[in-house]
């Protein structure tokens, strides 16, 4: 897993493609883990499909 021994320097940043719930979670975790994150989203705002949902089961929380 750790290939830092292969000679090429590791870059401490990560590109996340997609700003839906998965992309946002990845980006937040990586940022808190100490990496610079670029989040690329095709729409003008993040949120993805989940932002279109009304409520989510089983707790019926507002998806927003």
């Amino acid at each position: 897993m750790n290939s830092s021994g292969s000679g090429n320097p590791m870059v401490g940043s990560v590109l996340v493609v997609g700003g839906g719930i998965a992309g946002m979670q990845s980006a937040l975790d990586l940022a808190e883990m100490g990496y610079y994150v670029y989040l690329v989203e095709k729409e003008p705002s993040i949120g993805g499909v989940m932002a279109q949902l009304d409520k989510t089961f089983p707790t019926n929380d507002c998806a927003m």
Partner: protein
Amino acid sequence: MSEVEEVSGQPGDFRVKVRRKARYIDLEKCTGCGECARVCPVSLKNDYDMGLSERRAAYRRYAQAVPGAFAIEKRGTSPCKATCPAHISVQGYVALAAQGRWREALELIKKDNPLPAICGRVCHHPCESACMRGKVDEPVAIDFIKRYIADLDLKAETRFVPEIKQKRDEKIAVIGSGPAGLTCAYYLAVEGYRVTVFEKLPVLGGMLTVGIPSYRLPRDIIEAEIQVIRDLGVEFKTGVEIGKDFTIGQLREQGYKAFFIGIGAHECKKLGIEGEDLQGVYPGVQYLREVNLGNRIFLGDRVAVVGGGNVAMDCVRTALRTGSKKPFIVYRRSLAEMPANEEEIEECREEGIEILTLTNPVRVIGENGRVKAIECVKMELGEPDASGRRRPVAVKGSNFVIEVDAVIAAIGQETDWACLTPECACSLSDWRTLKVDPVTLQSDDPDIFAGGDAVTGPATVIEAIAAGKEAAVSIHRYVRGEDLRRGREKRWEAVQNVPTEGYDRIPRERMPRLRPEERLGNFNEVQLGFTEEQVRREAQRCLDCGVCSECYRCVEACLAGAVVHDDADQVQELHVGAVILAPGFQPFDPSVYDTYGYMRLANVMTAMEFERLLSASGPTMGHVVRPSDHKEPKKIAWLQCVGSRDIHHCDHAYCSAVCCMYAIKEAVIAKEHAGRDLETTIFFMDMRTHGKDFENYYNRAQEEHGVRFIRSRVHSLEEVPGSGGDVEVHYVTEDGQVVSEVFDMVILSVGLQTPDEAKKLAERLQVKLNDDFFADHSSFDPVASSRPGVFVCGAFQGPKDIPQSVMEASAAAAAAGSLLGAARGTLVKEKEIPAQRNVYGEPPRIGVFVCHCGINISGVVDVRAVAEYAKTLPYVEYVTDNLYTCSQDTQEVMKKVIREHNLNRIVVAACTPRTHEPLFQETMADAGLNKYLFEMANIRNQDSWVHGMDPAMATEKAKDLVRMTVAKVALLEPLPEPELSVIRRALVVGGGVSGMTAALSLAAQGYPVDLVESGPELGGQALKLNSTWRGEDIQGYVKELSRRVSEHPQIRVHLNARLTQVEGFVGNFKSVIQNGGDPITVEHGIAVIATGGREYKPDEYLYGQDPRVLTHLELDEKLRADDPAIRQARSVVFIQCVGSREPQRPYCSRVCCTHTIHSALEIKRRNPDADVYVLYRDIRTYGERERIYQEARRAGVLFIRYSLEDKPVVAATDGALTVTVTDHILRRPVRLPADVVTLATAILPNADEALAQLFKVPLNEESFFVEAHAKLRPVDFATDGVFLCGLAHYPKPLDESIAQAQAAAARAATILARDRIRFPGTVARTNPFLCSACGTCVAICPYSAPRFNERGVAEINPALCKGCGLCVASCRSGAIQLQGFDDAQIFSMIDSL
């Protein structure tokens, strides 16, 4: 608004090209106020609402969107604008006209064309030829719309005269008052120059006046448009001939700084035939000029007009009006090649004018020096010439003679260049036009510019206008010494790919005209103009080709100056170590199914559409009505598996894994919205509620909410005639009966699929997709794509729900972190928080923000009244109300307000602090305030949501809540947040695949791990499994994983060990591991619980009594050993849901269906003749596992459904094992002989109450650990620093366990990555002077936070305190206060009530 174009390089070191698409609104400047959208005239389907509502071209996806800035959607330049020589924003004024915004439309036109009333009559409108509506039916009548807009202004009391930008002293001379000169004068005047127009003729307007007859262009219209130019301060001098009365040299001496020559082409070209000099032969424009100047010339009855352009048409129609009985046209090409406007040709015909086409004059025959006849020759069309038109060729011997009284030659014009006296350095072309730079229109003489017919030869009005406008730009730059060319060589390209499908045919409006008989003998205007209704109808035919119409209203409306219409895409290169792909899914489009009539039946909609219908922010604001007649439905049906588990219509073999649950949810929520009497029915094949707590929800939906579930196959839907849209569902029940039932609405539970964009992305990035177009991956490395260093998660990896997506997302973060561990922290900076303002000693200055929450609050509570009320409360300095106080732009406003009004306490009256307090506290910190000087009044959950029936009372209650909160906030004090260092080591409990994966991931990220396993070896349950459902070898994998864990220098493995003691808190745990020898004490910052689960050993179905009855794992063992009992079995029966989905254990064990089918296939592989039966309740091969279910059916595995009420019976008689089950189709008991019976038994957690106690984490009723949030925090515990994965969370297959373990590692790493950790300030504090050291608090605290200090009084460790308040309530001395909730603060709230 970006997309990845290319990724090159290698893991750890990638170069990425990202295209950031133009947003047309500056993110930094936009305040999200929405004014741009308010003024935007373009409506389009709102895809956020699944097309159920409309939005503007300037838009924000939804109110709480992040970022909160708007964007403008553009497809490109509309063809009308691109084609128009003056590039008027045609789509813009058409869009404004459609809404009756006439003045705005006129102002927009006048940005590019100062003569719209003229153009609206005589323009040859190339815009209409380019109009895409023409592809649907007929082009939009753009020119007539423009005419209406302009005429309205001419008739208005106050006409539109643009504001002069800045008065300037420089004088400019414009020579010629035709359209080019007038336009140039207009725009120079707007810039502030002193402009004089010199006109040779006694009248103004050039060809407009003397070339075009007044029945086409009335003189008062020309005069009216010139008047506006006069109003701008332009001086007009008629009857002045430059070159004769004055020379350009003299004007230079008089101080004119620049010249525009727009003198047109008023000299006629000659026919070049014999007899041209005879009396009665007139040059066309000269004839028109004479008539237009008021000289009535009668030419005789028979007049031959030679030519096919507009001048010819004007001549022939003028002749008719001046008394000629039979004027006619002679034109050498055919009608199709005629350059004149179509409508002029048409009007000619109406007026009875004959057009002789393919006819060319060869000689004018005279008598006594006067015209008598014209000799013509017939022509035919040959090869195309330079103009692209077919060249006419004379037909030999076809000559004929027509007797005429006059001949008018209208075959072209040229310019008289007498104005260019020798001091001018400009030169002429071979065609006797002035040579100018094509972009700047500057001649060889730097101060002389020119345009119009004088430059182009005879051309059109709009081209002259365009030239006049460009020349004005050049002159303005020239006078100021600027670069004339910069930014002007723009290539206008019309947008491609404008959809023209799906529009109804709407004919173009017809222009009302004077009747032909009314036209004779007068010059009255023929075209009468559209009515307002016609204009609006016509404007609404526009297809909005460019989407944004470029009407620029947003530019004017945006007070922040954020709109940037000339924004452009930018390609950026990024340098990254890893890539994570989460491009998501799109809902399946059911229009391919004829069965469901999705497009045909109004009340059939997709579940995503219904989701929007349920949403408070949706098209009906949460009011459930059906589309056909907006009636509230009484019966709604859901149809499952639309676009899933179907290879016939859509090639989606997989199960989408989420639809069963969302359908149930929608059914339950719909009943909440529409009332309990709403009947909800779900038509399904197998109910797949395999997630944690899903089965419970399913049961409650049936039992408590009365949702009806019908196991069936739907074969068609049709509308009930005359019902207003009711839908009849025809379906076949399990036992083959055909049944029909009528519903008000039908919802299609559409599946998930990978969008085309994501497929293309995968192709660009060389990431392999599988047959279902999901990212190809291994079960053992579920978030690794086929390309090293590129990770995948979410629905792009496979169809899945939110918790699973969130887990995988964290897992992908862990995988990237494992790769890049060495570079961690090299590119990040701590967020800088401004220093806190010291507010001690200041009187409270309270700001109150009252939220509408869209309509959530304001739909019930009178928010404005609450805000007004708040202003009257003590210490309140500032009050406002917001549509969404939580939106990003409001945060910016809040920061500004706090600073400007010097506020030191903030109240937000909105929703719940549980979700929104952190957001507002961050805003306060950014504004330099201590974040504890904040309170929320929950006027939504505690008010508008519960008092919907009584708005007046709810408003009063909101005031009460605000008053109480204001009273409390006034007493709040700033609280410090203690900081402690983090021990950067991990403890993992459980040495199965989950525990090992978590440990390895953390170790790879650089954190030492202690791994505690209760058994003698690593591996857990996986040691008993053979292969994954995809066929990957588990045994080999586990051995390799165990080896890597054992050998990893950063991992210390403790076997046969357990935890006996845990103390401390996040970042600072100290635990004791007991493994038989001396206890080992370890310090660690986080802990991961991966204690796993085990197989349930049943006491039914003869298990334990007959050796032929096995569990899954026992069968696996026999398969591993290639036991002859299995190899030779002729009949094998699997019984599903043994111990699962039963009253005593209601959950679904998630893996058993797949496990059974995988084993059944293995048995079939080894012995194809064996009969294999699966007795099931619902087959739950969710996601791509569905493939092996289909494979098993093809392989001849027999599936028989049973119900919980009628379970199979296993009996052993005379040594023979039989299973009796009631067949679901035959409805009769069937006896199956069985050599082997395999029980798909439940998965039980290794319930560890003691461990739960040690870490103070909860277990649910079934003894699975309870995560912090089922959807959004699936691997966290509510207790900070403790994480969860694997079977201890819920039954799950190996790949999901691995992903969850990686996720736990990622979440843990977010703590271990920090040096220090901050604790909240809202903790309990003891007053040592009041403490009587009774010890009650020490005993009662569930978190062991209080203890006695060296002085013998209780002291509370702020890092352990959760602020629950138990100690406060139990302290007999009143020595403990909970900070932020002290007695005085609470009493102030009560007192103010």
